């Protein structure tokens, strides 16, 4: 019955699946660290705010699908500029250039230029593109509204604007085909002899001229519409799924580990106390345990979430309420055995207090079992929370993998073949669960050597 930590670790390190579990867990923890470092929590909290995802594409597949395809699907590009400014006489020039290689087998669906500029007076904004074949096309020329003092002005230029079509039409004699009825992006990115995609390096330039004061481009983004984006793609609400999946990792680990530690500690203390005290105390405590044990957890969890609240911390509490009972039963029967051991009886005879006997002599004996139970009860906590979130009862301010799947199912992702929206969250749930199951299995093998044969 007695184990030392060293022996356990030695046995554990010989178990292949135990090590596999630890490796997966380390990867998950590093993913959480990456999430904390690269994606600030504030920006993650805008997950459910549609306005913060405007520049992302709708329902785009992950960009790497292009590796498996002979025809490259246009990628959605969100480009940052290289800035340059100069002063000639009294005129200030500001140039933002966007350089990119366009090697896809299709036209971009559109392009949008988003900008925020600080100026006074009435600066002029010009946008032009230099194509791989050297042809330069003027796209737009527009002036900002006049301001006598310094103002900040935000606006967007859309490829669908009529004025762009008119400007491009002035280059129509360069093209060998008629430009009537063809949208702007299909002209800009087209070969001259026929309306086909022209691959190569494009340079979009945005010039800002002002005489009175040097203008500042606070924000300047060129978005090229495409059908694939990022590592994990985007969903129907234009959200970058990699952000959600990455942030789901610490949330799932938090829920799983807190719930299992909470349940195991509660169950251990409860069970050991009942077993140690015996008689009427034991009877009453165990009948109460029976009552909770036989309650249907999921319906009650749903009612609790609907009536009391669905904050993530409350959820953890609810899961603990239903999680401790099995552990209490087992630890009670273990305590029944341990309390008959001689050293415990001696301690009792010597007049040691009950809580001291429980915490110093009985609980340490149960630690290996406790660790195995913690590992084994993590997956259930994670899947239960995911299930509740999948039903739409999760905490909306902390979107979890279950909620990503909830959104996927409410936009009928399965029917529309959006595998990149369905597969990754489920795999993440399962892999996280597996890490703990592996570790639990390894520890179980150490505690119950009988099963190893």
């Amino acid at each position, binding site marked *: 019955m007695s184990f030392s930590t060293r022996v356990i670790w030695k046995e554990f390190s010989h178990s292949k699946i135990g090590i596999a579990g630890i490796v997966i867990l380390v990867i998950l923890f590093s993913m959480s660290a990456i999430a904390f470092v690269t994606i600030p929590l504030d920006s993650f909290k805008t997950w459910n705010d549609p306005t913060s995802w405007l520049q992302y594409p709708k329902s785009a597949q992950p960009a790497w699908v292009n590796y498996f395809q002979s025809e490259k699907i246009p990628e959605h590009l969100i480009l940052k500029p290289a800035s340059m400014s100069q002063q000639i006489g009294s005129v200030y020039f500001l140039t933002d250039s966007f350089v990119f290689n366009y090697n896809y087998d299709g036209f971009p669906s559109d392009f949008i230029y988003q900008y925020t500029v600080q100026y006074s007076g009435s600066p002029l904004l010009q946008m032009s593109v230099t194509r791989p074949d050297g042809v330069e096309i003027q796209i737009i020329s527009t002036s900002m509204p006049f301001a006598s003092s310094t103002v900040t002005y935000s606006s967007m230029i859309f490829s669908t604007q009529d004025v762009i079509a008119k400007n491009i039409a002035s280059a129509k004699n360069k093209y060998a085909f008629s430009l009537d009825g063809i949208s702007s992006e299909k002209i800009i990115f087209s070969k001259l002899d026929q309306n086909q995609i022209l691959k190569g390096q494009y340079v979009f330039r945005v010039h800002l001229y002002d005489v009175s004061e040097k203008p500042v481009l606070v924000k300047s983004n060129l978005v090229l519409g495409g059908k694939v984006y990022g590592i994990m793609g985007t969903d129907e609400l234009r959200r970058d799924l990699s952000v959600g999946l990455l942030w789901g990792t610490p949330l799932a680990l938090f829920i799983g580990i807190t719930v299992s530690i909470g349940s195991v500690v509660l169950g251990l203390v409860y069970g050991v106390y009942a077993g140690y005290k015996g008689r009427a105390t034991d009877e009453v405590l165990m*009948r109460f345990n*029976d*009552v909770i044990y*036989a*309650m*249907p*957890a*999921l*319906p*009650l969890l*749903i*009612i*609790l979430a*609907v*009536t*009391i609240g669905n904050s993530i911390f409350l959820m953890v509490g609810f899961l603990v309420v239903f999680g401790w009972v099995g552990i209490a039963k087992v630890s009670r029967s273990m305590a029944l055995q341990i309390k008959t051991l001689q050293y415990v009886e001696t301690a009792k005879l010597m007049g040691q207090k009950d809580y001291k006997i429980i915490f110093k002599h009985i609980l340490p004996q149960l630690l290996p079992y406790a660790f195995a139970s913690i590992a084994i009860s993590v*997956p259930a906590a994670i*899947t239960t929370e*995911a*299930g509740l979130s*999948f*039903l*739409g*009862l999760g905490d909306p301010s902390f979107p979890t993998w279950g909620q990503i*799947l909830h959104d*996927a*199912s409410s936009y009928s992702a*399965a*029917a529309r*073949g959006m*595998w990149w929206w*369905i*597969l990754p*969250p*489920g795999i993440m*749930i*399962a*892999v996280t*669960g*597996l890490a703990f*199951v*592996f570790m639990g*299995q390894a520890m179980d093998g150490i505690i119950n050597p*009988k*099963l190893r*044969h």
Partner: protein
Amino acid sequence: MGFKKFLAKRAITMFGVLMATLLVTIILVGSNMDSISKQSAALEIRQQVTNNKSLLSSFKTTEQLDSYIANQIKQRITALGLDQPWYSPQRIGLSMYKILTLDFGHAKFLTSDSGSSDVRDIILEKLPRTILLFTTATAIVSVLGIFLGTVAASKVNSKLDKITSGFAIISSSFPVWWIGVLMIFVFAFLYPIFPARATPDLSVTDPGYWGSLLYHMALPLITLVIIGFGSWAYLVRNFLVGVLQEDFITAKRAVGIDEKRILYSHALKNAAPPIVTILALSLSGSLGGAIITEAVFDWPGMGRLYFEAISVLDLPVIIGATYVLTAFFLVSVFVADVLYGYFDPRVRRE
């Protein structure tokens, strides 16, 4: 302790659990339920007054009418006992008594397929479908699992044994409903073999109804079996491996009884109590999980009813469905306990 006393004790505990669950549910939804019943009483009075033309014309001013209506509502609320706070012992006792006698009242929004809004009718319509799906699944899973587990236990550490254990561990970490979504994606849309919605499209009176029901049941059934049989086989294997190490098996081997016979008749018989218990427990477990599974497959049973009731907050249905689900859950837990006590007398003596 005799078996009868053991039975009685378990039965009393189970009844206690049923009451406790009911009490918790009523307390949780009580205040909402209270305002809903008050509103519906007020609405009823208002309708009665507006429909009664002669009564309506006897009022001279709108103030008179309003005070009359307010008075009537007050009287009705007192008559219904709604004037006391919802947490008063009488009202909780009354609601518990009503639910115990299966009087769940009328649903707020949901109706049964035949159009009745009586919660009892709705539940009676959905319950058989849930029982059909989940008992069939449990039956298939247990047969498959016992067979595979026995084979794995007879060849411990063989390739088959390792595959079974590996499959069990991996399949148990995937949420059933997620596998369900995948199955729908693959077998209803990518390769349209099965319907995506499990609700049969024929009416109950149609002669092809049962065929259609079974066809629509196939996908959820296959999913439940795929997810379930691995862990079953694993459990059966572990029990059997434990039994096979007992002395009496070694003795039988020494006597020269054929290994197959030892496995199938002696070892399996001794591993029966835990296996039977798990059979009953897994049935109750799957009933609890039915809410999500049925929501995914759109299977028109208790689980989906529960889900729909939650999404529109139809409290009478929620209370009724919780009660029935709990009752079924408890019956299977009770059966598991009793079977275990019957097979393994040590439990009774505890």
